[in-house]
């Protein structure tokens, strides 16, 4: 408590005043924690929305509704726009901001397709290609990737065709199925504890969606469709494909790497042959919604190891006045269970949400990725997340706390638990000025093995971040961000300062980016990297050093842009080292 109190005092003492300007391509992402990965599909969706559409229309609203981070209300509002029942998003601050960022000042053009070609120099050279073509009856999406040092040009590719016939929606090719709250089938990124996580956990899946991410083994490949059935809606898919991964100890490890360079990686490429069928039926009930999912899969690897699984779940939500309750309960033929449930209460500016979860050890369904803290599926967990938001005078306060514990797998084993707490204060002075600051405290016990005996450490880590943004005029903006992180055991703090500026002149724009960090121990610092449009990479600093980044963008016409990024990193304090230089080139075109 003493530590928390002292942190809060420091929090209050520091004020930061900044203007509402965007330094990355979408300001909405700036609010997210750079320590946690964002789904690439969100960036692709936003790029497509910007390139293919010129304003908020039913079509563009439908596309935006597939974003992973939206709240239930925001999805509902976009659904209303899509259905022609709502014409503007003035009551939804985040959607309004997104809409302005995407389409403000855009001319009406007849755009049928957009493409991105990106060349990214890392340890080698990585290539990525994105394409989206929009015809009257069809929508076609293309994605190709060649990672550094991979031998084949199209080492990975993904194609989908989406069409509608009468009341049926068909997606052929790579698709994902988002059902319930993620205990059976979800996107490749799960919801993690953070500000606003309750909204994400509460949001149920919307069935079949085209797969746009670069994850090489997550998509279903085959046919997915949606149709009315009875008094509800049926979403179903059948898929057969090869995925990277392994079958070990009677469970599936799907590889998240997607790299095929080493002999082992090449050998494990497409190691598992997978066949999956899944169906979801959901219907509206008075004041709510209920659904039922059933699916099965069979996996065989090159060693002829075999695994099969059946999984089903029931889910639903129920609304009473200002209270919304939700839950999903899943079981599998491996006799593994998982449950997630909770509720949310909202009254004017007051908001309280709570989410419980319990996931068995070795729980595996088909593409489950529900809200959880630890990624290792061999270990289950139980936990409770709470979030509170309210307004005190002109200050908006947001507090969240997640407490979790690993389930015991065998008697006498090391017990592991942890918590994560965050507080955010925000004050809006006028439409362009406000104050915001954030503090996070994370703690998760872990094993340490020594010469004498193993013991465990459980030291909370505090991260304090303050940002100052200044918009000189429409074409010139500046930002300074300070970050401090330390273990609460008296060890020294890591400090970081980031300076950014953005300058625009006619068709040119230039972004400058400088970071200086002083790192102590394992208190590594994370900052959003200098990104090209469609990227949202973060950069982790693990030792003292300095970092200079620069992006030059040139709009060659109303349909095309060229972006160039160069970054230089010195991994010593005194610059007495050869810097590591990286670069990227990106071409955005529309037809």
């Amino acid at each position, binding site marked *: 408590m003493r530590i928390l109190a002292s942190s809060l005092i420091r929090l209050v003492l520091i004020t930061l005043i900044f203007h509402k300007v965007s330094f990355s391509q979408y300001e909405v992402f700036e609010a997210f924690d750079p320590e946690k990965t964002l789904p690439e599909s969100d960036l692709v969706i936003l790029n497509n929305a910007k390139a293919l559409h010129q304003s908020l229309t039913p079509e563009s609203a439908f596309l935006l509704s597939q974003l992973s981070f939206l709240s239930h209300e925001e999805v509902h509002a976009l659904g209303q726009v899509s259905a022609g029942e709502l014409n503007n998003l003035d009551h939804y601050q985040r959607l309004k901001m997104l809409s302005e960022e995407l389409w403000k000042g855009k001319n009406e053009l007849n755009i049928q397709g957009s493409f991105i070609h990106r060349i990214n120099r890392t340890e080698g050279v990585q290539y990525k290609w994105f394409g989206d073509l929009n015809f009257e009856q069809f929508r076609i999406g293309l994605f190709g990737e060649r990672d550094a040092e991979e031998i084949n040009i199209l080492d990975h590719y993904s194609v989908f065709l989406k069409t509608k016939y009468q009341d049926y929606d068909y997606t052929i090719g790579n698709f994902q199925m988002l059902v319930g709250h993620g205990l059976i089938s979800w996107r490749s990124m799960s919801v993690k504890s953070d500000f606003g996580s309750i909204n994400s956990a509460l949001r149920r899946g919307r069935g079949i969606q085209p797969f746009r991410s670069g994850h090489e083994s997550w998509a279903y490949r085959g046919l997915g469709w949606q149709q009315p059935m009875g008094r509800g809606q049926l979403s179903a898919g059948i898929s057969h494909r090869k995925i990277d991964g392994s079958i070990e100890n009677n469970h599936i490890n799907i590889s998240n790497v997607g790299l095929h360079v080493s002999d082992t990686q090449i050998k494990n490429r497409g190691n598992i042959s997978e066949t999956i069928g899944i169906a979801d039926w959901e219907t509206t009930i008075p004041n709510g919604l209920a659904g039922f999912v059933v699916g099965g899969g069979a996996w065989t690897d090159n060693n002829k190891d075999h695994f099969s699984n059946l999984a089903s779940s029931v889910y639903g939500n129920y609304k009473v006045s200002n209270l919304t309750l939700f839950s999903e309960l899943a079981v599998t033929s491996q006799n593994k269970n998982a449950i997630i449930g909770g509720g949310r209460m909202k009254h004017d500016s007051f908001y309280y949400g709570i989410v419980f979860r319990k996931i068995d050890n070795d729980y595996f369904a088909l593409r489950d990725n529900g809200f959880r803290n630890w990624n290792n599926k061999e270990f289950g967990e139980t936990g409770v997340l709470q979030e509170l938001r309210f307004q005190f005078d002109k200050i908006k306060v947001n507090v969240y706390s997640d407490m979790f514990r690993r389930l015991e797998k065998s008697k006498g084993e090391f017990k592991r638990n942890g918590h994560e707490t965050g507080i955010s204060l925000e004050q809006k002075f006028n439409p362009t000025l406000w104050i915001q600051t954030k503090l996070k405290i994370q703690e998760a016990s872990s094993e340490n093995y020594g010469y004498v005996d193993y013991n465990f450490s459980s030291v909370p880590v505090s991260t304090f971040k303050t940002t100052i943004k200044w918009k000189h005029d429409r074409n010139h903006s500046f930002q300074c961000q300070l970050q401090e992180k330390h273990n609460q055991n008296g060890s020294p703090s890591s400090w970081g300062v980031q300076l950014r500026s953005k300058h625009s002149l006619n068709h040119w724009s230039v972004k400058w980016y400088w970071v200086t960090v002083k790192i102590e121990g394992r208190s590594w610092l994370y900052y959003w990297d200098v990104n090209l449009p469609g990227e949202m990479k973060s950069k982790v600093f693990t030792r003292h050093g300095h970092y200079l980044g620069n992006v030059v963008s040139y709009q060659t016409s109303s349909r095309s842009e060229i972006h160039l990024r160069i970054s230089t990193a010195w991994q010593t304090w005194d610059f007495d080292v050869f810097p590591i230089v990286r670069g990227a080139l990106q*071409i955005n075109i529309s037809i």
Partner: protein
Amino acid sequence: MVFFYPKQLYGAFESESLSPLQNAAGSIPFSIHPNSLGVLSDPTIISVNRSLFGAGSLNRKFGLKSLTESLFVVGGNFQDFGVGLGVSRFGNPNYQETLVSILGTKNYKELVQLGISLNMYQLRISNYGQAWAIGSRISIRYTMGAKVETMMSYLNANRPVIGQSKEKLPQVISAGILVRPNEKITGQASLVQDTEFPISVRFGMIYKLLDQMDIAIGKIQQPNIFTTGGCINWKNFRIEFSYLFYADLGFITYQTGINYTHIP
């Protein structure tokens, strides 16, 4: 002894089929109007070369007779499609690589030119026999504005292999930007990556000295080559020449060629 040079070496079909003017301007992997021979490496230009055209060139890599390369292409416009046929030969009587390309191009909205070539690779070694494989090239050229074009090309994305040993044929990703700040100057910057070699960065410029004469210079990094050359225009004909100096090797390659483009 070139063949024991410890750095980058050419393997089967690693030699790029570029026209003298492309080579002179930094071995730009994309065609430049009205340089007809460039369609072998980038067929998108056929949609611009709407009339009948033909071109050929000859060079000896590093000045060695055993590494003689000859290129020939003919094409034109048929309805809304550009079509062409190209042949290149490389080697000597003992070792010979032959590449036959069927080329096609489609223009879309005057913004995008999509070019596709179907390549038949034939490798012949005397007293050992011959082998062949089918490869492909997809080229895309996009008009980014009045002064800027961007190009992308993917060679052998279908992963062809040749011979009993299943030797992998080169897979190459190319990307480039062509800038024309005024009527006299054409500048290029391009990146060429054979997936088994480090990326090659190339810069070059063509300057129209007279109506009848262009000169060009360029620089390639990886391998380290300085390039220069030019072309002389006379009615429907263009005579091209290039000079490539391999700085690390100390060798020189000369290339000459002739273009004919029917101008109605």
